[in-house]
């Protein structure tokens, strides 16, 4: 074999090696270590793990966590918040943010190679894994920590058939409306207190003929339509209450029932050409994050979107800063009966093994201490400003949050009822399928409410 051929062969082998390395699993060491730690515990009897935790030494165990949050700040804050706590206990946490978490977690679980803990952005997926026996039940210690730190509504998100599997780790607040208090004041509008006031305000603004009342956009690439589902969920919660909401997401209440159609019709009636500014021409062609600029440019007054939306405002925007007339703030998306329900999303941490180290990490994630630390580290990492992180854990020190984030916290604290984003709880055929696509058709005016609702109901897997 000539020299150049050897070189080619060598190069080829190297390429194979690198590809294999890239595809390979980087959890080997970590899993080994935690398994060893687990084995040690089991070897000396069951109580040993507990006593190891109590004596404050996990013998160098490593706990791996995966999740969909993957910005540098998220990764750093999760890792640091956990490791600062667990370093004295001789336990290391390795968090990996996975851009393709949803697909990879399936592969990892099916391949018998799951992480120790994973953050689930969707309770539905957690429930699937729980029913399949992939994630394990929480220990009493973790349950106690959840009870102490989280209100019942958030606990329910991690509850599958009466057993707690998920630990609330992050909260997104969806029931808020972004606006500029300065402009409201200048134009003589007041923050609405009820849904009827909200509708009246929209009509008043539209009649005034200046800026449009609402900015709405539901385009989101492959997920086009999801902001529509958020509106419907918020209205279901407001118009019909949490019990009906729960029946709706489990399809006990059919999708084409009058209650759901009423919510859909309310949204359709609000989203008229007179009421809505859509920077992409039509609502369904407007990217959901394209609504921040028009709001500060004065092309619309209000935009209903979750707390993470702060990140989409142009640079230099101030938030809840009374000294700035152009400052952007939020008000609670008004309710009907005064029970102040909030629509939330967020992540839930769940474990794939019962190692004492794994459970110790979950126990800490459930505390308000973790939320505070994560927020503090994230804010430091980003050099001030809004972090995008929020937790509804009770007993946090509000001073680690910015003024606007404190506003979010107070809305969460005032809420008597909280419910998780319904489309994430429905089967994906609906929640990430027809609810989006039929909703988009409805917004485009290609169908009417009855037809859209009926088609969504038909797509519900039996």
């Amino acid at each position: 074999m000539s020299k150049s051929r050897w070189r080619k062969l060598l190069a080829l082998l190297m390429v194979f090696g690198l590809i294999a390395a890239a595809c390979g699993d980087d959890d080997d060491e970590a899993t080994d270590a935690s398994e060893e730690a687990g084995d040690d515990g089991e070897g000396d009897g069951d109580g040993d793990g507990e006593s190891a935790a109590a004596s404050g030494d996990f013998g160098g165990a490593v706990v791996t966590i995966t999740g969909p949050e993957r910005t540098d700040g998220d990764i750093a804050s999760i890792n640091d918040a956990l490791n600062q706590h667990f370093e004295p206990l001789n336990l290391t946490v390795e968090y990996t943010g996975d851009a393709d978490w949803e697909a990879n977690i399936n592969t990892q679980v099916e391949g018998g190679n799951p992480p120790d803990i994973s953050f689930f952005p969707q309770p539905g997926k957690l429930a699937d894994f729980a029913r399949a026996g992939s994630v394990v039940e929480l220990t009493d210690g973790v349950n106690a920590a959840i009870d102490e730190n989280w209100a019942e509504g958030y606990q329910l998100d991690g509850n599958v058939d009466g057993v707690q599997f998920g630990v609330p780790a992050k909260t997104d607040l969806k029931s808020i409306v972004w606006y500029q208090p300065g402009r409201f004041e200048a134009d003589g509008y007041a923050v609405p207190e009820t849904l009827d006031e909200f509708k009246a305000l929209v009509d008043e603004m539209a009649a005034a003929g200046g800026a449009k009342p609402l900015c709405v956009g539901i385009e989101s690439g492959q997920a086009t339509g999801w902001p529509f589902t958020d509106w419907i969920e918020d209205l279901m919660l407001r118009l019909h209450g949490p019990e009906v909401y729960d029946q709706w997401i489990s399809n006990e209440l059919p999708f084409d029932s009058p209650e759901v159609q009423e919510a859909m019709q309310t949204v359709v009636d609000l989203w008229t050409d007179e009421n809505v500014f859509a920077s992409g021409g039509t609502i369904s062609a407007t990217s959901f994050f394209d609504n921040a600029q028009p709001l500060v440019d004065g092309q619309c007054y209000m935009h209903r979107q979750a707390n993470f939306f702060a990140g989409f405002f142009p640079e230099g925007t101030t938030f809840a800063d009374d000294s700035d007339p152009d400052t952007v703030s939020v008000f609670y998306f008004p309710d009907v009966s005064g029970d102040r329900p909030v629509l939330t999303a967020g992540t839930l941490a769940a474990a794939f093994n019962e190692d004492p180290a794994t459970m110790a990490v979950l126990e800490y994630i459930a505390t308000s201490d973790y939320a505070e630390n994560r927020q503090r580290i994230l804010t430091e990492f980003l050099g001030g400003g809004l972090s995008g992180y929020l937790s509804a854990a009770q007993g946090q020190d509000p001073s680690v949050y910015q003024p606007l984030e404190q506003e979010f916290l107070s809305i969460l604290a005032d809420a008597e009822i909280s419910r998780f984003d319904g489309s994430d709880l429905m089967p994906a055929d609906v929640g990430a399928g027809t609810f989006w696509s039929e909703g988009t058709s409805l917004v485009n005016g290609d169908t009417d409410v009855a037809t859209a609702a009926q088609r969504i109901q038909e797509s519900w897997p039996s």
Partner: protein
Amino acid sequence: MQTLERSDESASEETVSTLRRNVLRRDRTPREYLTLGVGVLVVLGLLVWSFFESKIRTTSVTVVVAVVASGGIWVGANLLFDQVRDNYQRFNAIAYAIIGAVVGVLLHGNLITVGSGEGFLPWVLGPLAGAASFGAIGLALALNDDPQRRLAIGLGGSAAIGLVISLLIRDVYYPGLDAVAIVAYTVVLAAIGGGLSYLRKRPPVGGVLLGAALGWLIGAWGGADLGEGSIATSLVATLPVALLIGTRLGISKNLDYAERLALDTRSRATIFVGPALLFIFGLLVIPAIRTAYLSLLDRDSQEWVGLENYTSVFTDRDSLDLENWTWMFTSVPFLIGIGVLVIALIVGIQMRRTTGYAVEIGNPTMAPLIVGALLVSFGVFTALRGTIINNMWWVVVVTFGSTAMGLAIAVFADQRRGERVAKSIVFMPMAISLVGASIIWRFVYAARDISTEQTGVLNALWVGLGKLSTGSGLPTLIITAVLILILLGLFMMLAYNLTRYGVGRAVVPGVLILLVGWFFIRFIGAFGTVGVGGFKVAPDGEISAQTVNFVQEGPYNNFWLMVIMIWIQTGFAMVILSAAMKAVPTEFIEAAKIDGATDSQIFWRVTLPQIATTIGVVVTTTIVGVMKVYDIVKVMTNGQFGTQVLANNMFQEAFSFTNIGKGAALAMLIFLSVLPIMYSNIRRMQREG
């Protein structure tokens, strides 16, 4: 090497050493030193890196082990079959020993037999025992040619092995016997074995025996609840299998020299083709069969639902919606298409009268026929809806569009100045991934609110045109003037061609006058029209701009997605067709020129028939590619706004909605619709080969 170089005593050694010196001391250029240095550094860096990175270290070890192992198996197999011809006993003994070792690994490695467990010795014990016992039988059989003794060896040896195995099996694996399963499997597989032997023109007894052995094995072990039996059932389950195989071995004969030669030759083919077949089976055939199987189960692959997934694909409103089929009769492209087809009919009758052929490659009937058919298909596809219709529409438009444009560019650029540059530019999109291209076109198609600047090129043009045609400023006047000049020029050309060449040459300016004239009339708003471009007139008469939402406005949003594919695929068609055209022998073209053929006649009558097979290849390749189109739809709409196609639907059902049954059914549908095209492609390749 140094010693060699120094010992310059004998002449022959001297030549060798000079040669070596020449090779070794050949002057290297600085460049070579640089590459060498960089290469060494890279290798060293990788080594250091891999030493510290456990991930790379373990992976490298795995890769090396895998490569060495597969290479070793391959070399070993060759070495083994080297023995067939002259050392038959050795070959037989080793072959049997290997089978024995495999059996040992299977039983012992899976901790099924007593004495297996952790550690090196327990691990090698089973395989070694298996190799030794099987190898002894193999050797004994090879040494004996007497039929009765062979039968005795086969039966005795296998009975002994069967007895030992059945006794050694751990009691937790003792099978509870299911007589029905044993009998059924044994009978069925014996019949299959016999049948296979018969087809191979061998005595069927051998096949029956082996089939029965396999059947008994599956029936006794596979159909039973393990752990419910006793040592007796273990014997019943194992011994007959061993005896059947033993009989089969006993009644066989040792190969004579000619048969051994044949085996030697045949084995090589198997060894060489084996790995490829293994990959095709492991990665292609078995997954395909499994997909077919899954497509008959429900969404969780739990219950048998028969063809329900397939029927649901065809009855689902999203897949196939023929409800509004009557719309096609009122659609504009359909009506124009029918008109063009009528023209084709008239021209065809005329051509039939003059040349004897109504339709012929390159005759005037062709153009209106194709254009008409295409327009009619547009009418049909816009009236019908659904995934399947969309896919068909994609196939028709992209295949025709990219092939026709590729051919046109290949023809018109051929031997012109700037041919290479033009072709490079057309070919360039091929280098962009479909996802990348889709993102580029997202920006081209972007639409913004009319109160803001349009960022998408097409909408900027469209809205700009609308503003021009409904405006009254200087730019509008300039455009009007330019249009009038163009029209005047076209009229002069028409008149010149009419008087000089006759009606035939007047067609092009005539059509152009109609098109530009129509545009002009609408632009200036004569005869009750109100202009062209993106604008909208409110009931109160106020004129405002109007964008086209290319990606979302159905059903033509499908077409705008297809444009992306055409943009990419044209380069491919052009390169292949251009190469084919350059391969047409110049003698033919020169001969045609001498005979007085015009350029267009040469193209239609000489070049085109010569490259017809290549066009076929381009068309079929494109069809196969388009049938599987996924990326563009995924990125642009994810199947919303009525643009769903089969591949994206399949992905969505199987992986987003975890409806495995329907996803598999859609995968099978794509597979089945591509199959005939692949078949014809392969047949053509074989013919050409």
